[in-house]
């Protein structure tokens, strides 16, 4: 006697916005009729905050108080206790995605210390002897497009041994001149980060040039905060001794789920940065950091 529960949304990409109606079906399929004590469907949006281990010591008292922030929750009964006939059955449902009070539906985001997730959970209660069945399903929420107009402001950069900070022995550095620009640091999340970079000259051959996308997550409250920067992805844009004087494109797609529009709330912040990392053949590592502002239009 096996029964499977499944949830399907109308939209293939599973993306919804605040104010819209989340619609779909619960699919029940079993070979024979099944007795149950009621089927319910729960929709929930939660922000989970976690402190990094290095922060835990300092904020121990505070750590315990970091509990999930509920953004939205709703529950409906799909079917009353009874018997489901054998075969495949689809039960449609709808949830309005509206919040109570002044709460906002933040955009779905999977991070390390901050996670914003929206789930649907379908539960089937059954008699004492049979196990309850449950099925969870994540759907995405995209925040409302920002009204403010984005004017792309290119950012030029030049990297030479002299421009570097945080150098131990400047005199040991090989000579190099790298010029480039990012077309914008205020980026539309659906558009790639673009720009160009030229190795004008370099005494030591280039080994690799990479774009490191970094998330900066801050959790905190009145007592203090924990701020951690971790790598989301590292995209190599040049490999080996590239031709000097020839511009190399900077191009990086913002990964879905792992990025969201830059977010700043009273309890937490999610920000992004990109590092242009140049590795020389002698393993010198040169990094140029650019804070980004992501938004959705």
């Amino acid at each position, binding site marked *: 006697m096996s029964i499977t529960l499944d949830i399907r949304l*109308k*939209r*293939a*990409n599973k993306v919804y916005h605040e104010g819209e109606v989340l619609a779909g079906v619960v699919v029940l399929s079993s070979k024979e009729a099944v007795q149950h004590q009621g089927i319910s469907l729960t929709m929930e949006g939660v922000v*989970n*905050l*976690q402190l990094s281990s290095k922060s835990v010591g300092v904020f121990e008292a505070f750590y315990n108080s970091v509990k999930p922030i509920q953004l939205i929750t709703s529950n409906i009964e799909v079917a009353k206790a009874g018997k489901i006939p054998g075969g495949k059955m689809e039960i449609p449902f709808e949830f309005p995605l509206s919040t109570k009070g002044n709460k906002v539906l933040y955009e779905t985001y*999977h*991070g*390390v*210390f*901050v*996670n914003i*997730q929206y*789930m649907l959970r379908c539960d089937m209660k059954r008699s004492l002897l049979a196990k309850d069945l449950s099925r*969870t399903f*994540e759907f995405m929420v995209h925040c409302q497009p920002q009204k403010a107009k984005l004017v792309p402001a290119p950012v030029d950069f030049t990297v030479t041994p002299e421009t570097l900070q945080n150098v131990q022995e400047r005199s040991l550095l090989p000579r190099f001149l790298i010029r480039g620009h990012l077309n914008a640091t205020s980026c539309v999340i659906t558009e790639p980060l673009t720009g160009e970079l030229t190795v004008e000259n370099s005494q030591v*051959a*280039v080994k690799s*040039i990479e774009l490191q996308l970094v998330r900066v997550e801050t959790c905190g409250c009145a007592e203090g905060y924990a701020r951690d920067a971790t790598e989301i*992805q*590292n*995209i*190599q*844009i*040049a*490999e*080996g*001794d*590239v*031709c000097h004087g*020839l*511009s*190399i*494109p900077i*191009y*990086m*797609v913002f*990964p*879905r*789920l*792992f990025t969201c529009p830059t977010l700043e709330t009273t309890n937490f912040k999610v920000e992004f940065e990109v590092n242009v990392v140049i590795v020389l053949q002698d393993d010198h590592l040169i990094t140029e950091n650019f804070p980004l502002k992501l938004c959705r239009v």
Partner: protein
Amino acid sequence: MAAVQWHPRERRYTSELQSCRPECAPVEPGDYHPLKAITVTDAKSRRRKGEILARFTTTEKLSINLFMGTDKGKAPNPGSSAVSEKVRNRLEELDNQEEGSQRELLNLSQQEYANRIEELNQSLKEAWATDQKVKALKIVIQCSKLLSDTSVIQFYPSKFVLITDILDTFGRLVYDRIWSMYSFTADEVNDTAKETCLNWFFKIASIRELVPRLYVEAAILKCNRFLNKTGIQETLPRLTAMIRGIGDPLVAVYARAYLCRVGMEVAPQLKDSLNQNFFDLLSAFRQLHGDSVQNQLVLQRVEIPEYLTLYSPAIHWILQCVAYRAPDPLLTEMMERCKKLGNNALLLNSVMWAFKAEFVAARATDFIGMIKDCDEAGFPKHLLFGSLGRSLACADPPEAERLTILNEAWKVITKIRSPQDYIHCAEIWVEFTCRHFTKREVNTILADVIKHLTPDRAFEDAYPQLQSVIQKILTYFHDFSVLFSMERFLPFLDMFQKDSVRVEVCKTIMEVFLKHQAEPTRDPVILNALLHVCKAMHDSVNALTLEDEKRASSFLISGFIRMVWFGRDFEQQLSFCVALANQCLSQADAFFKAAVSLLPEVPRSISVEGKSRPSESFLLDFISNFFATLLVVPDHPEHGVLYLVRGVLNMVQDYTWEDNGDAKVKVYIAALPLLAAMSQETYLYSIPKVDSNETLYGGDPKFLMEINKLCETLIGQVLDYLKTLGREEQMVRRQGSLSFSLFGVLLAHGDLRNNRLNQLAVNLWNLNHKHGCSDTRTSVRTLEHMKQQAQQPGMAHMADMVQRLTLQSRT
């Protein structure tokens, strides 16, 4: 009731078909698969693929570095839910393969390497078939990663070919999968298809390393069609620019070649990216002579000329794409840009290779100038001249320049030291020479080739090229008197010393001769030379030769003999045949053997003047004549005594003769005179300078005994047959006439002093007369003849015998 008339609907199948495809960029007709030649899927490029694999080889040990194997469970990231963890793991698997179980296969031979890649291709298909899409993607990423490794650089082009095969497979799988999800009616379904497609692109966009990211995205370029109309148009320039990030110029140029190839396949109308690829290649061209490359070459002990040739297939590809249907001004511009660069021999070579032959031919003199200016230590010059020659083989330069071109080119070609390089280049130029010049120039070239390839028997390694030279000459020279009047033609043929090759060449020559020689010839030069050719062809036949080959050879040889005609000068014709017999005993032997073995295939009836007639009488005539010829044919030293005669008799025995006919026995009887003639001390006739069996055996008693034994058998057979005939009434007439034939033979060829033979003859006479069906006049004449014979010395026994032969009374 009036019949309903049928009116067919007018159909436009092409457009109807078009309308049910998703989105298709408009393409000018005939433009769709323009460079089929460079797509790996069709035959021609398969050949090119094979060429690359055969050409870029190595004996060095290779290694494959793969980070696959079991997926180790990783510590879950803090704060991630079940679903996101899965996604994250996937991404991390893709990202940080270094942390996966690394497997390096070291010390692989080239073949092992290729096999390993093929295994990966198979596991890709398997993974796909079992719905392990992530694993499939991982395999493809790992494979494309191998393309950033230039450790055994001579093998790189071959590696490229092997790996892009996998990429093609992958691209096809992804495209087909999404295509199968696609629907023309339901938008909801298409959203799913689009979502799947987007997923692939997002996954690929997060591949850490540049080279795999580039290749894998290029592999699924076609899938952009599912997303929007401009996808491909935007992606191609981006990927083109992305290649600038590849530091190693060889890796970069092959990446460009792949991108151009995929681009041509998917969106041939987008020419800008092709051009851009070429221009980018030019911008980074100086890299080839940069320090990084130099260091690498020193490390791997590879010379610059060899290194540069590794680029050729890729640059050929790119330029072919660029040049396809390109207007002349664009080509001119491309050429000018190449000219401006230093060390441009490599580019020059590809330009000549890839641009329209007409374009190159028209500027041949320019090209020669440029080739001469090239650095000696760089790209091999013979390859440059080879490429130029290839263009000139199919398009003609201005007439006034032709001789200068040939002279200039040959001046360089003749100086090429390596015989292999020399012949590769010379072979190409033979075509140009044959096309525009006379036998004098061709002869000069042949002489030059002979001069280069004779030392150290260098020709042994150049048979394919030498064969091609012959082929080309034969394409342009059909007049064999001209051909053989080239002094060096026959000496050239002498270089084919490997039997199989020589025979092939001979066949080619004979085929061309038979095809183009409209009238029979008596030209002694032709006859002499072709006889030589035929002899070679014939001598190649041995026990292992297949029937078909034998047939083909004999067809060609007999075809030649038929073309020999001395008109009314029969004496000449005869003397040719005599010459044939004289010089070509072995050929004759083969003919005779062929004739014998063909006997069983003689049909029972043949058509004569439109009427079907039994062939038996013709066959009997032939066999008798054949016997007469066999007298002069000496026994083959390797076969037994009377090999051919026995052969005929065996064939005769097995042949299915007409029922109720005596042909078989007639043949037996006819063989007796031959055998008798063979046992003579001096033969009835012989061919001057041909030693027949008389000289061969010199009347050896063993030989005579063999003959006699054979005769005995034959007579025995005839007599047995006569007995069977005697059993039936209606056959006595046949019995009579056969017995008389045998009697005649005994009389003419037998020694009737022998009592038993004498008795046999008498019995036969009586048998003939017993049934009253003998021809009295013949009998009387026979008796008269015998009486005459009896007058001769030593023939007295004839008189006795006549006494014993009684004429049948007419009462």
